């Protein structure tokens, strides 16, 4: 009976599936299929905001500079740079580079793109290159960038979307709709986008580094469910996926057809304390650094990472990741110390249990992390209420100060300034706790204008001692690893701490 039911089903399925595999690629090169965790937002380097969008841009739009796995700045569309003085940057461009529409990529096009990033209404790049004062075209392959003030993170901004050069002709023609059909100078050109289904790119024969590109097409498929994304990899429908659920990792390791790739990321997860943002900062937690320190001392970071993330991530003490040369080495990760935590609460004269609302994103992992923190903090004398909030609502609550403590994360930037200034400086756009300390401000400003990495590290070290050790503005918990899985047939894939997928040199066997 079972066989009678299953047999026609099997035949039908085989016929249906057979046709799926019968399609031959237009060229002899294979196609690469990548599974993303969500659908990217607009594909315009000036207006884009999402992390997954950056993964697509890595195949579509080359930048002036790139970073390597050691976070060193390396040339891409630019071949070299030289600081003429702390405020003047001379950039030499690669010759013979074309955009996907056949237009020439030259100094004028770079000037156009930088000014577009700086002045276009709604640009998300403006804040990143706000120090840029003017761009002078010296020759078709040379530009002189003048800054309003010395800025050490400026060059690293040109390794991301702010350094992406778009075709001026296409951008002028499309205006604000440029993202619907972006034209850049990357290894692949845009073919089509079906929202929430796929983004298809095709090999650009005129790419300056075409010899290093071994795929005919790259397709990005957003699959939000992590189990379904992994099933697509296991069944061979995808070649490379983002892994967002650590519980998938043991299964990937045990499958000989798959390979796991991990690297320490640039980001972090932390608890932001509401210190000065509205009425809800007026609590023992918001007003007394000793209470915040006691809370910090109650958390066992190793155990938290073990329970929620299979021990994958790295405990954190600061916003600068261990992969960075400017990581402050002598700032130790807080070790759990319940006696000290209880003593601090007694010293602060607060009545226990101290009630804390801990806001976090409404995802299974975040809720689990919140519950682990809740039970750890309870032992020190805290009554933590986990407030799982949908992301958009949490963001609004954070901006308006409608929270006490907020567990959230940041994807990270190659230069430490991108992980620190906007969150810790009193004028920082993402300083949601409204922490303000003039000494910290001054140190962060100096770190921003100083070019010597050793001196910058020293400024950060001093700033963290004030903001974190003394004022306890935030509690850093862990630096997440970037985790990707791919078929064993994929060769030459190197994961860089920024988590982007660089197709150059990769091939399918």
């Amino acid at each position, binding site marked *: 009976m079972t066989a009678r039911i299953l047999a026609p089903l099997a035949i039908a399925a085989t016929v*249906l*599936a057979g*046709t799926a595999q019968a399609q031959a690629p237009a060229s002899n090169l294979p196609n690469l299929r990548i599974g993303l965790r969500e659908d990217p937002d*607009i594909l315009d380097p000036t207006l884009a905001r999402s992390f997954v969008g950056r993964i697509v841009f890595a195949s579509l739009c080359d930048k002036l500079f790139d970073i390597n796995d050691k976070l060193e700045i390396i040339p891409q569309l630019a071949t070299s740079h030289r600081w003429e003085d702390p405020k003047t940057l001379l950039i030499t461009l690669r010759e013979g580079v074309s955009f996907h529409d056949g237009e020439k990529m030259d100094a004028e096009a770079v000037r156009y793109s930088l000014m577009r990033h700086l002045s276009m209404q709604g640009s998300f790049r403006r804040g990143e290159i706000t120090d840029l004062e003017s761009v002078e075209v010296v020759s078709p392959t040379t530009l002189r960038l003048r800054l309003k003030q010395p800025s050490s993170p400026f060059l690293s901004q040109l390794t991301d979307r702010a350094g992406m050069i778009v075709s001026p002709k296409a951008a002028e023609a499309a205006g604000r709709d440029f993202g619907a059909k972006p034209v850049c100078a990357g290894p692949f050109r845009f073919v089509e986008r079906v*929202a929430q289904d796929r983004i298809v790119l095709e090999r650009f024969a005129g790419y300056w580094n075409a010899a290093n590109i071994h795929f005919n097409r790259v397709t990005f498929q957003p699959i939000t469910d992590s189990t*379904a994304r992994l099933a*697509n990899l296991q069944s061979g429908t995808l070649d490379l996926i983002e892994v967002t659920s650590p519980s998938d990792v043991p299964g990937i390791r045990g499958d000989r057809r798959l390979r796991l790739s991990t690297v320490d990321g640039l980001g972090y997860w932390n608890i932001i304390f509401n210190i000065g943002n509205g009425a809800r900062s007026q609590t023992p937690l918001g007003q007394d650094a000793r209470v915040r320190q006691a809370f910090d001392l109650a958390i066992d970071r190793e155990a938290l990472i073990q329970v929620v993330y299979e021990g994958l991530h790295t405990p954190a003490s600061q916003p600068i990741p261990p992969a960075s040369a400017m990581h402050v080495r002598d700032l130790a990760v807080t070790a759990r110390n319940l006696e000290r935590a209880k003593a601090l609460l007694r010293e602060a004269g607060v009545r226990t249990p101290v009630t804390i609302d801990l806001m976090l994103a409404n995802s299974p992992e975040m809720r689990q992390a919140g519950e682990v923190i809740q039970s750890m903090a309870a032992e020190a004398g805290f009554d933590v209420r986990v407030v799982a909030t949908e992301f958009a609502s949490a963001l609004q609550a954070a*901006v308006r100060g409608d929270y006490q403590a907020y567990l959230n994360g940041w994807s990270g930037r190659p230069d430490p300034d991108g992980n620190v200034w906007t969150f810790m400086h009193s004028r920082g*756009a993402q300083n949601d706790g409204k922490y303000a300390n003039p000494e910290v401000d001054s140190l962060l400003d100096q770190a921003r204008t100083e070019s010597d990495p050793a001196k910058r590290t020293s400024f950060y070290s001093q700033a963290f001692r004030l903001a974190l050790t003394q004022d306890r503005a935030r509690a850093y918990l862990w630096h997440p690893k970037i985790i990707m899985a791919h078929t064993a047939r994929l060769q030459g894939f190197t994961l860089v701490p920024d988590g982007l997928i660089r197709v150059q040199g990769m091939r399918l066997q």
Partner: protein
Amino acid sequence: MWGWLLRRLGQIIPTLLILSVMIFALQQLMPGDPAIIMAGEERGDPQVLAEIRAELMLDRPVWEQYAAWLWRLLHGDLGFSWRIRQPVGSLILEKLPVTLQLGTMAFVIAVAIGVPAGVISAAYRDRPADWAANGIALAGISTPNFWLGIMMILLFSVQLGWLPPSGYVPLSEDWRQSLATTIMPAFVLGGGIAGVFMRHTRAAMIGALGQDYVRTARAKGLPERTVIGRHALRNALIPVVTLGTIELGRLLAGAVLTEQIFSIPGFGKLIVDAVFNRDYPVVQGVVVTTAVIFVSLSLIGDMLYMAINPRLRAA
């Protein structure tokens, strides 16, 4: 008949207007500021927030936003998605065939399994066939879609390699691959609804089989197949048709979980992403389109009653 049809059509316009007012009102109650989401890393900069609010008309009173939206809608313009800057109209046209195909396939599966199972169950009441049908129906209703979906992917895609685990290919592009990509999600969706159909058909059939006209038909010596098929089932179908239009309407409104698991780019995925990103023009466009589909199906359902039961035509 025509007067009735015109009256029903006349009721649709105020229904849709009330609904559109409700969408706008509910959006105001929704926490989360679209400007803050769109501002991203510059969310702390009041100038950036003001620029975004001005561009999206969020700094205007709600009634003004509503009037502008309604005016554009009357001109066939549903606006632009704030997140990906694509026209909402084209997004909906892109997703509508996907949802229609998936919904219709799921519906056909549900009816094909549910109605015969209900009839058999009623005809063999309190016998093993009835118990088995009830058990399967209960399992179908109780099994969560996401679990069944994942299990089917693991069995048919990962283990057996028969079907693609996700994605969607339009019927016009390659009908066989299109069916291959939609058969699993359609089965997941239809399987649950088949249980509901089975239970309703069974109850209606048991009621019909106890009626005098069925006894008369049997007394006349009609074969049991004719008694059940022509006399009992036809009368029992009226509540099932009502249920069918409601279930089909629900299917065509998008199946959020199933679409997420199988990465089917239909209405469900579209609206969920739009709500989470506070992409209001997309939310408004999808809700209005869904409402039009729902209201139309309800009208078709009423017309079907008349086709099935001639007594209603006189009313």
